[in-house]
């Protein structure tokens, strides 16, 4: 029997995410999950994940078309369910984004998404980079050092409140790689592709209440 028997992750399916990769990892971790855009699945889950590859505009438009945003906000703000945005799934939680024009985001986190100030280093930022922990949090349980994670991003989130930054990474300049505000989490990298460190982090997210 799984140690998480009453818990379930709903991997929100809005036709933009790489739901395949994330579900492979959840399966390997023996975490109960579903991939869905259905209200009853979202309501019956204890944790939510907004996966992400894709552009900001496409992601926010698809999310609005495929998923009941009011219902999600009720889960996040009233029921306080932990929610994790991965890559562009995190970025659309910002107030707005500047990829292929300016677009409004969900506005859950005060900040905007813009191109990484890479100081002429080639973009996008692709590969394994160190995630430097800046603030204590339960998602870092069992972390004994700063691990490398896999990134693939041209844009990053610039936050108004530095207190929402849990970790940063450097590519020409520092940018937030893990953000957190109450029960809302965002990873700019791909935990599902970051081997052991990614597994640890996802497992810790699932351990949040």
């Amino acid at each position, binding site marked *: 029997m799984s140690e998480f028997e009453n818990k379930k992750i709903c991997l929100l399916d809005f036709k933009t995410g790489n739901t*395949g*990769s994330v579900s*492979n990892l959840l399966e390997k971790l023996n975490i109960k999950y579903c991939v869905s855009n259905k209200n009853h699945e979202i309501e019956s889950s204890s944790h939510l994940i907004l996966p992400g590859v894709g*552009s900001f505009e496409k992601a926010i438009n698809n999310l609005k078309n495929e998923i009941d945003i009011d219902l999600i906000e009720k889960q996040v703000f009233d029921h306080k369910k932990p929610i994790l945005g991965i890559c562009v799934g995190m970025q659309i939680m910002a107030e707005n984004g500047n990829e292929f024009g300016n677009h409004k985001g969900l506005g859950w986190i005060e900040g905007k998404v813009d191109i990484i100030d890479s100081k002429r*280093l080639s*973009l996008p930022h692709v590969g*394994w980079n160190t995630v430097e922990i800046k603030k204590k949090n339960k998602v870092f349980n069992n972390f004994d050092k700063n691990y490398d994670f896999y990134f693939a991003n041209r844009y990053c989130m610039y936050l108004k409140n530095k207190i929402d930054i849990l970790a940063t990474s450097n590519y020409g300049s520092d940018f937030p790689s893990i953000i957190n505000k109450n029960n809302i989490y965002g990873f700019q990298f791909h935990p599902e592709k970051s081997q052991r460190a990614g597994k640890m982090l996802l497992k810790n997210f699932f351990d949040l209440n």
Partner: protein
Amino acid sequence: MLKKRIIPTLLYNNNILVKGKNFKSDRSVGSVIESIKIYNHREVDELVFFDLVASRSQSQPDYGLILELSKECFVPFAVGGGINKLETIEKLLKNGADKVVINSEGVINPKFLQSSSKEFGSQCIVLSLDYSKKKNYGLIVNSGTKKTNKNIFDFLNSIKDINYGELIVCSVDKDGCLNGYDFETLKKLRKLINVPLICSGGCSGYKDMLTAFNECKVDAVAAGSIFHFSHMTPRQAKIYLKSKGINVRI
């Protein structure tokens, strides 16, 4: 700091993994699922999987196979071969691919790169260019079977305003020959483009990787033959490179 990557490439031809020489005479190198399991276990940085049949015939990739492989792959998994529609990319990503490698269609119709980037984000669109230095740097498509009248430098200049995530270049003259990457061309290409550059074709050992990183300033090196036909491994490569001052993930 961002690490330099070592990427094993897996070429797939009708149920078996193969490794060609100058893009001809595919030699079998065993089962694909076993190779992926081993590479995953050894914590490689990334894997590139290329379906030669789909590329040569421009047919649909085998989605069931991709899903199966991705279940064993917890590192970034780039998939190429026969990608010429947005729908194909959507299906690949849904079946566990993290990035797609676009070759022929990107050369013939560069607008496809732009629409793919807009739809899925440029970070998951890898442009792959195969060229022959002997043939005046001409680009070759459909996995080395079809020549074009485009030259790699002119082509890259012509798509400067088009978004894509990474560029993987392969010298057809060098491929599988184990006599070094085409360093001279790589240096020229590095000056021309500002997306991550991955070199492929001809790697004979760890020293070639070092030269590619130090002198050609590539972001990643790809290799097939040395990992399939010798005792060399990605991990040993990284130990060597680290000892020479290259920032790799160990």
